[in-house]
């Protein structure tokens, strides 16, 4: 049975959370492809290709902005959030468990072809880290910061940089939702001036900085920069572990579609958000890990067949992230495909009468090429 009452706040700071694991076979035959193990810390190879449930309150708390759009729709339809346990995620979890937090942060880059489940792998790892009590810095899609920004203000901190107040305030709101308790515990280490009158003194909780950013939208970008800086400086002390999770990290080193008022193109370095995030992704801090995903889907000026790190990151990005551990996410293996198909059948998502037959399953497998996204899109109208 699943422990619905387990909220993040009661989780211990270090070490495993206090959830009891019961691998009791369920009352109704919920089939082989489900597992009742809802704590990612306990996922091992025997749980591979099975779907585990995340309670909906946790989903709201942990992933205010992280899940892919179609998965969110699926959660609303099925009234439950089921994530498949797959090999790349298990591999990453093993590395994270065994990592030495005195060493500089290791960077992991999840790459793969389109629609193979990179973002879901990232979310699985995120869930694990938030269960373990880490401070999670999740940027859901870095591509959103380099395109379609309506307002670009000139930064008051550095003259040649540009602020993006809307994006920064959205992110600050979501950050507040997911990491409430840390905002009270972490204290600022120097005084920050927001304009002429307002300032935040030394020793105030970080929550005040976030409130300042949300209240005064003009200074939201600077507030975000302050938050990142403080967290990075204090992570090596060991009072908390930091996970920096960036989806679509190749946006930070590509081109933007934004233009300044004189119609000259903006390069990513000139955006304050991108600049601060690049500083976070350097491995000159310790006490955590950096997990990133490459994504061609929202990327700008990249061919649709590009999926390898060098192609998407470019020379600059590769040099900046090097040395990183690349983790490849392939299409579904046969077992995983069976699992996903069985889940759709069980939730009565596949209504077509031929879809229940073996031939139908083989046809679905062929048409989707065992690609998770294709299978999802194919199963929709059926």
């Amino acid at each position, binding site marked *: 049975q699943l422990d619905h009452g387990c909220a993040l706040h009661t989780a211990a700071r270090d070490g495993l959370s206090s959830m009891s694991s019961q691998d009791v076979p369920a009352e109704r035959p919920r089939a082989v492809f489900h597992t009742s193990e809802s704590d990612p810390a306990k996922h091992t190879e025997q749980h591979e290709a099975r779907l585990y449930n995340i309670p909906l309150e946790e989903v709201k708390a942990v992933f205010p902005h992280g899940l892919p759009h179609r998965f969110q729709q699926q959660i609303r339809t099925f009234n439950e959030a089921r994530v498949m346990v797959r090999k790349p995620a298990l591999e990453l979890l093993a*590395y994270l468990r*065994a990592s030495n937090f005195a*060493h500089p942060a*290791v960077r992991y880059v999840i790459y793969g072809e389109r629609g193979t489940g990179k973002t879901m792998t990232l979310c699985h790892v995120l869930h694990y880290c938030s269960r373990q009590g880490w401070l999670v810095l999740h940027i859901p899609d870095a591509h959103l910061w380099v395109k379609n920004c309506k307002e670009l203000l000139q930064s008051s901190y550095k003259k040649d940089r540009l602020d993006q107040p809307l994006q920064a305030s959205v992110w600050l709101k979501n950050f507040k939702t997911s990491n409430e308790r840390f905002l009270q515990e972490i204290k600022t280490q120097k005084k920050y001036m927001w304009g002429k009158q307002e300032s935040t003194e030394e020793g105030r909780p970080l929550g005040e900085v976030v409130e300042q950013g949300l209240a005064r939208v003009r200074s939201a970008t600077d507030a975000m920069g302050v938050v990142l800086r403080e967290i990075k400086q204090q992570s090596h002390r060991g009072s908390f572990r930091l996970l920096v999770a960036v989806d679509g990290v190749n946006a930070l080193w590509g081109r933007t579609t934004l233009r300044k008022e004189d119609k000259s193109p903006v390069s990513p370095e000139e955006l304050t958000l991108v600049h601060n995030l690049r500083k976070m992704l350097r491995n000159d801090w310790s006490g955590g890990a950096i997990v990133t995903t490459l994504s061609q889907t929202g990327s700008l000026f990249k061919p649709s067949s590009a999926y390898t*790190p060098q192609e998407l990151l470019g020379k600059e990005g590769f040099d900046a992230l*090097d040395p990183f551990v*690349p983790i*490849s996410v392939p299409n579904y293996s046969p077992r995983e495909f069976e699992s996903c198909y069985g889940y759709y059948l069980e939730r009565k998502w596949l209504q077509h009468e031929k879809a229940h037959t073996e031939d139908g399953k083989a046809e679905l497998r062929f048409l989707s090429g065992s690609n998770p996204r294709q299978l999802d899109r194919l199963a929709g109208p059926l």
Partner: protein
Amino acid sequence: MAAGAGRCCRAGLSHGALLSWALPFPVALSQAVLSRTAGGALGTPRWGRAASSSAAAVSGREGPQPREGSVRRRGRTPQFVRSAAPPRTERMAVDQDWSSVYPTAAAFRPASVPLPIRMGYPVKRGVPPPKEGNLELIKIPNFLHLTPPAIKKHCAALKDFCTEWPSALDSDEKCEQHFPIEIETVDYVSSGISIWNPKARVVTLRVKLSNLNLDDHAKKKLIKLVGERYCRETDVLTITTDRCPLRRQNYDYGMHLLTVLYHESWKTEKWESEKSEEDMEEYIWENSHSQKNALDTLLQIKTSENVSNVTKEELLASEVVKNYRNSVIALKNNSETESNMSQYKESVKKLLNIQA
């Protein structure tokens, strides 16, 4: 550089060598011949009916009553029509001498070519039109005059004008070893008013760079200087010259170009020291971002473990860093295959001491 022959004297009767003797017969040559032969073979279609069924229709209509005056006449068909003779193809033996049917370049004559060829776009649920009266087949160039027996006869005729191939050069490797530079020139023969053809002044020089005495810097500089004229797969530099009016002048200019390229590539100019990373042909790991990042990371790891006095040279000489270096070079110079990526992954795991 051993000097090549002045003209391309590879006129031996070996298989591919004949192609270098391009003796194209201009198609314009035999226009007069065409009209005569076509007129002789097919009487009826010259009278403007290009449809394939015209010959059959006319002969069918007029056939049984060829010369009667009371025949009904349609259109402008003349009163007395010769029946079309059967085409020559029906009387052709299988082992005939084809080079006498098509001794020179000529247009396609359906009655002289005993092949059931069809060409053209078919109508709905039909087949391509047959060869009789098929303009498409006449329009395109054909090589019916260049069958292998015909070429054999050409060679036999030209043999009197050739010298003996040197017996010492009996293999391609020996040819290349003694004569590394190949010169290619083309002679044109046509029947016309003048014997001179402006295309005959083109001279092509081909040489393999492995036969030239070049060191690493010189080879890279030469490749940059010649640009498109170098082929990486076959390591052949091709220089084509046609800027002078005479063939001898073009040949001299080509050899001059080769000499100048060779000597210039050996020199090192002052500004070559400003060669930057973007100009490099291949990835060099030393002094790159990758090396800097790796060393910084390793130094941080060592300080966190309180191991001091580890110098950069020691780190560079260690096994893990060498492994990492090789994997990064493989990744950047060769393409990003699965094996390269997994090799890189393993080397990074060893470098950063990550256990699973």
